[in-house]
């Protein structure tokens, strides 16, 4: 591709390119990916918008420090193979982050072009380059891995933190084995995030790429039961724990154990990991409601409610106790949900799940809330309005109000220091209270994002490498 240099004025005149999407009415009834990606033309135009700032603020906004102006500049110059090599050098899972990162609060928020107009669509370009890379693997010069170090590292969990750490560690020449509790690698990327937002074939391909680079993965191994942490530590020179968030939190309201109440973890795992949306072709069933209420305002709540719509719900409703401004979900997910006809009941708190005499859910009784003074999170605290109870009719209720730390691993590792919530404590290098044992992702942070977990994986990999060189 020949690229003509364009003037600064022309560059500034290019508007932010729009992502191509499936029509809302169509996509709300299928599980295919909503976003269709950039064409080569759109990608080139968008890349040309980047000013290639010397002190690139966007990089500071990225938890894995992708050199954004470099790869976007390579796209603008028509060097896709170069862009792919550059991006993959910085980010082990670009096809994933290009789809699920909250760019609007990270790289794109800091983009200079956003000061006057729209920021460069970093996420869309990342996705474009990562997808190109998946189809043109042979054309990409990958970094030559370091010579074998003779050191063995175990990674617990094959979600975003574990995969990222493993990818970085094999690059440094270490012998890496990931232990995964489920039957398929990918962690939350497989069981949690739906097909319509992150196709599972993409996760499989990203995992395979890491395996080709030398990462070994053993599924069906639960650290804490199949092997204890001390057993693992004895067999490896270092361990990285990234076993994720774990146990779903329920609200402790009456009726939560009625038939038709799901945790978001269970609902999404049935549909995503076990393909219950194809039941009875797949053996795992999921209850399909006509009226589904999802409690929560995060990405997991959005994923659940949009899944409900795709499973055939006539009415799929978000019940959230604060207002839209406080919703932790990605802006794009909220926007997509609205386009798909999701109903938002804001400033409401669940009081009780109501059921019929056969113990099936019939509705969610809620109470209206008003916003009071800011709380510890800096968000205005919701305060109940007296006598404001009302019922949202529902046959399925999905609880998506967060998770707490899984105790399976930590219970068998008494030396591992935990905080009061059961999350593992680490220093700024990601090392735990046990020398040589590192941790990152949700087991340290509580429920957070894919990219923050990946950032932890990258930080820990660097620290593990330094630890092993000193060892």
């Amino acid at each position, binding site marked *: 591709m020949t690229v003509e240099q364009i003037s600064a004025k022309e560059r500034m005149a290019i508007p932010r390119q729009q992502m191509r999407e499936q029509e809302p009415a169509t996509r709300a009834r299928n599980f295919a990916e909503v976003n269709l990606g950039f064409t080569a033309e759109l990608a080139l135009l968008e890349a040309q918008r980047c000013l290639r700032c010397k002190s690139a603020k966007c990089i500071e906004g990225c938890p894995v420090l992708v050199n954004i102006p470099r790869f976007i500049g390579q796209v603008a110059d028509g060097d896709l193979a170069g862009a792919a090599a550059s991006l993959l050098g910085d980010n082990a899972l670009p096809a994933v982050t290009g789809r699920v990162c909250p760019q609007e609060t990270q790289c794109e928020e800091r983009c200079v072009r956003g000061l006057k107009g729209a920021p460069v669509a970093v996420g869309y370009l990342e996705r474009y380059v990562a997808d190109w890379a998946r189809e043109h693997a042979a054309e990409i010069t990958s970094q030559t891995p370091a010579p074998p170090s003779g050191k063995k590292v175990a990674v617990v969990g094959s979600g975003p933190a574990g995969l990222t750490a493993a990818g970085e560690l094999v690059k440094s020449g270490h012998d890496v084995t990931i232990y995964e509790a489920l039957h398929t690698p990918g962690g939350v990327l497989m069981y949690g995030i739906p097909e319509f937002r992150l196709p599972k074939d993409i996760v499989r391909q990203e995992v395979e790429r890491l395996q080709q680079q030398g990462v070994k993965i053993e599924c069906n191994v639960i650290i804490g039961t199949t092997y204890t942490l001390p057993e693992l530590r004895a067999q490896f020179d270092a361990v990285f724990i990234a076993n994720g968030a774990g146990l779903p939190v329920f609200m402790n309201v009456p009726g939560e154990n009625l038939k038709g109440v799901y945790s978001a973890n269970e609902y999404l*795992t049935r549909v995503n990991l076990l393909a219950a949306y194809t039941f009875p072709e797949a053996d795992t069933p999921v209850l399909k409601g006509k009226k589904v209420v999802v409690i929560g305002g995060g990405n997991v709540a959005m994923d659940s409610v949009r899944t409900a719509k795709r499973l055939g719900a006539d009415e799929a409703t978000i019940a959230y106790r604060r207002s839209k401004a406080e919703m932790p979900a990605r802006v794009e997910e909220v926007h997509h949900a609205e386009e798909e006809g999701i109903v938002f009941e804001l400033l409401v708190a669940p009081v009780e799940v109501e059921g019929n005499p056969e113990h099936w859910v019939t509705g969610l009784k809620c109470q209206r809330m008003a916003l009071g003074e800011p709380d510890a999170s800096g968000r205005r605290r919701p305060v109940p309005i007296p006598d404001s109870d009302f019922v949202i009719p529902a046959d399925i209720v999905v609880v998506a109000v967060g998770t707490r730390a899984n105790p399976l691993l930590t219970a068998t590792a008494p030396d591992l220091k935990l905080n009061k919530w059961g999350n593992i404590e680490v220093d700024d290098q990601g090392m735990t209270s046990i020398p040589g044992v590192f941790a990152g992702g949700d087991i340290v942070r509580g429920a957070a994002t894919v990219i923050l977990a990946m950032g932890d994986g990258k930080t820990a990999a660097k620290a593990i490498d330094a630890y092993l060189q000193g060892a």
Partner: protein
Amino acid sequence: MHEIISSTLLAPEVTRLVVAAPRIAQIRQAGQFVIVHKGPRAERIPLTIADSDAEAGTITLVIQAVGKSTRDLVALHPGDAIQDIAGPLGKPTELLDAGHAICVGGGVGTAVVYPIAQGLSRHGVRVTSIIGGRSRNLVIYEDELRRQGEVIVCTDDGSYGRHGFVTQALEEVLIAGDIQAVYAVGPVPMMRAVAEMTRPFGVHTIVSLNPVMIDGTGMCGGCRVTVGGETRFACVDGPECDGHLVNFAELADRLGTYRVLEREAVACSDATCKIGKSQ
């Protein structure tokens, strides 16, 4: 992959599979279970480990073919394989160190109570097993349990052993002796009846719960049961619980969540089979 070493029909619809799972065979303890995933498109189902042979690297699973997934598992032949077996999961049984315990097993639950009886007798505890089924051909694990102690067999139709429910025999043993604990595994109504029977005697009663489960590691919360008024996850807090505190009505109700869909799955796979036969 986990090779099927042997498959034995113990009773109508009840099959014993001996499966290669070396690590689990080495470390599993009484009361623990595994999650079995036969292969692509299969369900993940929890199965309590009935026995193991650490030297041979095998575990024993006793499966009642009640739905499509269990039927698919019992259809496996020696040499076939199960793709995924994860575990051992759940807390091991709290075994007495001395005294006299009763192990009550109903139907396929008898295979689950067997490792408990085995563990108890290894601890030097006197074991009386009371096992039952609807009729003679549904009584399993009698010989194995006899090696652990005394066995009382009950059948609903009187075709073998005593005529009547396990609870009647249980009452007599409770009245007769100094019993330190009762362990009961079987259908929910049986476990509930056992717990009600032992309550006035004040005998500690442990039941093994088998609710709907996906991951077996605490992640899905589908296996939640109410114990002593609080929600517990059977996979990580159990599967064994204090029978006097379990809300059995809720457990039985929740076990019915997928009944209609299960029938659909069976009907659908039967239809597929017929198509296969006509070709």
